[in-house]
């Protein structure tokens, strides 16, 4: 594929941003700035814009705090991926990162629980966790997934691909509807 074909593919798939590497604090700030400009350009405003921002911040902070290095001998190589694109109905926020195999069951349980709840139940669950859980060192307190499901109003789409006996790759896709009422 030559660069023109690559470019066409990115255009045709409405890719707004595509990133692979370590998510640092500076990168989070930069990505938000880029997205602000992009969303201005398509005159996306108010509500939908805020939802995208909220989901994006949570996604990137998940990567910042939880991405594992592919190879422990390499320092600072907690590489992850992030991509944003849209179609006629939704914005899609995709992330991918390495995760320890032993961390999969609790994460899977949490997302499945979140996906099983209605809007009102999610709100109740959020309040419960907000009030009861201790703040972890990483600050997460398990609210991230609940919040993404609430803000997006959609089920979280996820999967794990086992890479070796220690690591798997965690795929997460969050959709935000372009229509306000969803």
């Amino acid at each position, binding site marked *: 594929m030559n660069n023109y074909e690559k470019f066409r593919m990115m255009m045709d798939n409405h890719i707004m941003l595509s990133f692979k590497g370590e998510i640092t*604090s500076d990168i*989070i*700030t930069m990505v*938000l*700035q880029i997205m602000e400009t992009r969303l201005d350009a398509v005159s996306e405003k*108010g*509500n939908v814009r*805020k*939802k995208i*921002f*909220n989901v994006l*911040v*949570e996604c990137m*902070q998940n990567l*910042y*705090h939880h991405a594992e290095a592919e190879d422990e001998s390499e320092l600072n190589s907690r590489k992850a991926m992030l991509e944003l694109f849209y179609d006629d109905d939704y914005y899609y926020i995709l992330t991918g990162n390495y995760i320890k195999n032993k961390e999969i069951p609790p994460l899977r349980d949490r997302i499945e629980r979140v996906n099983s709840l209605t809007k009102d139940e999610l*709100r109740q669950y*959020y*309040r419960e966790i*907000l*009030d009861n*859980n201790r*703040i972890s060192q*990483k*600050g*997460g*307190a398990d*609210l*991230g997934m*609940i*919040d993404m499901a*609430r*803000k997006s109003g959609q089920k979280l789409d996820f999967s794990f691909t086992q890479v070796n006996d220690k690591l798997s790759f965690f795929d997460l896709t969050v959709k935000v509807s372009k229509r306000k009422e969803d």
Partner: protein
Amino acid sequence: MNNLRIDGSKQTPEIDFNGQTGILKISGRSIPENTFEFFNPILLWLDTYSAEKPAKVVAKVKLEYFNTSSSKYILEVLKRLKSFLNDGCDVNVEWYYEEDDEEMMETGEDYQDVSGLPFEIKPIED
């Protein structure tokens, strides 16, 4: 009592806590990765302030958006204010949201319920 003033940044809200008037303002966005570093001085300031036994405190919260790790600390701030209330201080929280931001309004209701503080939830007037 010293006032607490922290300028806002791309990741952190502006803090303007006035120990004399009892008006405590938080505004902007709160999305730092290391929430503890940002919020701990605020909680410590409130602890010192509580020893002064202020008669009246009004917290004005005007946040555009915040991440989930900030949400825990916002609750911690409100819990500190709840202890002010329990000590006989007249505490009020004014929670502002942008007109079309139903979620921020609902979040205000969530905090009102969880904190047990008197809340006024109102849209920002242009």
